[in-house]
């Protein structure tokens, strides 16, 4: 008689050398969030949340981050497509240029934006002369600053998805009579949708958290350019528990969005 053996999965035993730093790393990432939650003044939370200043900052943040993400989608997806599909000289240089805002300190980005789009800037002076409109210290300025900092996230994510996508589907579309735009719209874009979604989430989250470029380029005017991160920073100096509440709100919004999207689309993230 053969003994019936129960099948047991073979466990991977993690080496201590890897396990210890892994746990320390996890703690390092989670501990600050725990601190935030532990110090939250739960008792006065409701009344603080109802503060019009908090609501104004939150509304401005959500609005500007969303518009900035739309701007990034409109400009960034075509840019990613060109980088992924059109061979041209200097493509590597362009690709490197696209990632510069990613590594550039945001404050420097804000200064650069100022020099380019400010009232006396490279393009800004011309814009001001032509229309009398000047971007800095406006809500539009906030959107510009956020889009500048966040766009590389979208471009890199979408370009990666495009390069990984099977281009033979595009050939199949061509044999079925589809031109370039039709192929892009009906075949390419749906195929890379998960990459676009993942890129949009990253882009949105980055825009929502933008601080340096925003405060440099758009200033800190409540209701107009004071986004949540700016409000948090300001509150920390005058009213620390207000800062905690604002931070908690940002945290909840981010986690909620991530949880909401992760299941559906953001497998690529």
């Amino acid at each position, binding site marked *: 008689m053969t003994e019936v053996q129960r099948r047991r999965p073979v466990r991977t035993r993690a080496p201590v050398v890897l396990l210890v730093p892994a746990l320390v790393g996890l703690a390092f990432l989670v501990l600050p969030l725990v601190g935030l939650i532990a110090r939250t003044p739960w008792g006065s939370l409701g009344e603080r949340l109802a503060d019009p200043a908090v609501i104004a900052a939150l509304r401005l943040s959500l609005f500007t981050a969303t518009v900035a993400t739309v701007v990034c989608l409109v400009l960034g997806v075509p840019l990613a497509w060109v980088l992924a599909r059109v061979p041209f000289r200097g493509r590597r240089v362009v690709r490197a240029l696209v990632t510069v805002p990613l590594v550039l300190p945001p404050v420097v980005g804000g200064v650069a934006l100022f020099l380019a789009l400010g009232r006396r800037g490279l393009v800004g002076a011309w814009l001001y002369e032509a229309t009398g409109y000047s971007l800095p210290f406006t809500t539009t300025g906030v959107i510009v600053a956020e889009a500048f900092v966040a766009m590389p996230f979208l471009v890199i994510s979408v370009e990666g998805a495009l390069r990984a996508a099977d281009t033979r589907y595009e050939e199949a*579309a061509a044999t079925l009579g589809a031109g370039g735009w039709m192929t892009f719209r009906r075949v390419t874009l749906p195929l890379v949708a998960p990459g676009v979604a993942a890129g949009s989430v990253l882009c949105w989250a980055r825009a929502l958290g933008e601080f340096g470029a925003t405060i440099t380029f758009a200033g800190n005017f409540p209701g107009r350019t004071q986004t949540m991160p700016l409000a948090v920073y300001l509150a920390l100096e005058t009213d620390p528990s207000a800062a905690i509440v604002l931070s908690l709100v940002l945290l909840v919004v981010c986690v909620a969005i991530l949880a909401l999207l992760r299941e559906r689309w953001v497998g690529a993230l």
Partner: protein
Amino acid sequence: MTLLSASLGVRRGAFSLSADLDVAAGEVVALLGPNGAGKSTALRALAGLLSLDTGVITVDGVAWDVPASDVFVPARSRSVGVVFQDYLLFPHLSALENVAFGLRTRGVAARDARVAAASWLDRFGLGSFAVRRPGRLSGGQAQRVALARALAPHPRLLLLDEPLAALDAATRQEVRASLRHHLASPERATVVVTHDPLDAMVLADRIVVLEAGQVTQTGTPVEITRFPRTDYIARLVGLNLYRGVGAGHVVTLPNGATVTCADSIDGPAFVAFAPSSVALHRTRPDGSPRNLWPATVTGLERHGDNVRVRLDGDVPMAADVTTAGAAALSLTLGAQVWAAVKATETQAYPGEPD
């Protein structure tokens, strides 16, 4: 009437394709060849996914690709339908939307395109699968959807790339039989690219054999199977094939060995015989087989119910013996045997094309 007239010249590094291909309206031609022969290159050139370096492609008198006069019609403007090897059905669209795709791109209104696509799916017995995504279709169903998608815009030229390769053996049998009657239509020319001789024989009216970028033989399936002209085809159809010079009933091979045939032939000649017509003996047999050659066993493998014996000698060949026969002869690698073939079992035919 010749619908497709092509002379395909493509160079890619060391590889070069140089093949003429004419297909009449209503005709199905198989492009048969081993891997790397240039079949896919030919198909891509015909589809417009790759441009010719030299030559010409005209369909129904319209120039599609004439490098000499700078004419190139891109894939999207050709009246072509392609069934790709792994179908490439758009995974985000339903079966119906896949079939309607080629109609929509050509300006058919959405509703009309859906009606037309639905009737194509019905014709292929897929009416109830219209709303399914390709990921939820079986291999055979996906294959039919791909065919419907290619046919829906009524192309003048239909191209199929290894149409049965992605199917499992049982489904392949079934589809092979039904595919044949969907292919032929007087309105179009059809080219099937395949490395499977059975697919070529069942699906095509005419076979064009492509080896190393060159056409090595053209003919009906019967001609190709009975009178192979290259080792590749001989192996595919399971014949021993020799090239030599005929004089009366004797064909002399380049190494001096002779094969006696029932047919009388003079000049360059091919001789072919089936492995099953070879009789093996351990000792030199008495009697009068005309063809008797000493040989050494170099390989033994199962072949259906039989054992296929590879023999080396003046006339290298494959011979089929029954398993019992192989045991009785105690065949082992390196064994010395006598191989006998009756003259009436051989087939001799002219070595030069007519």
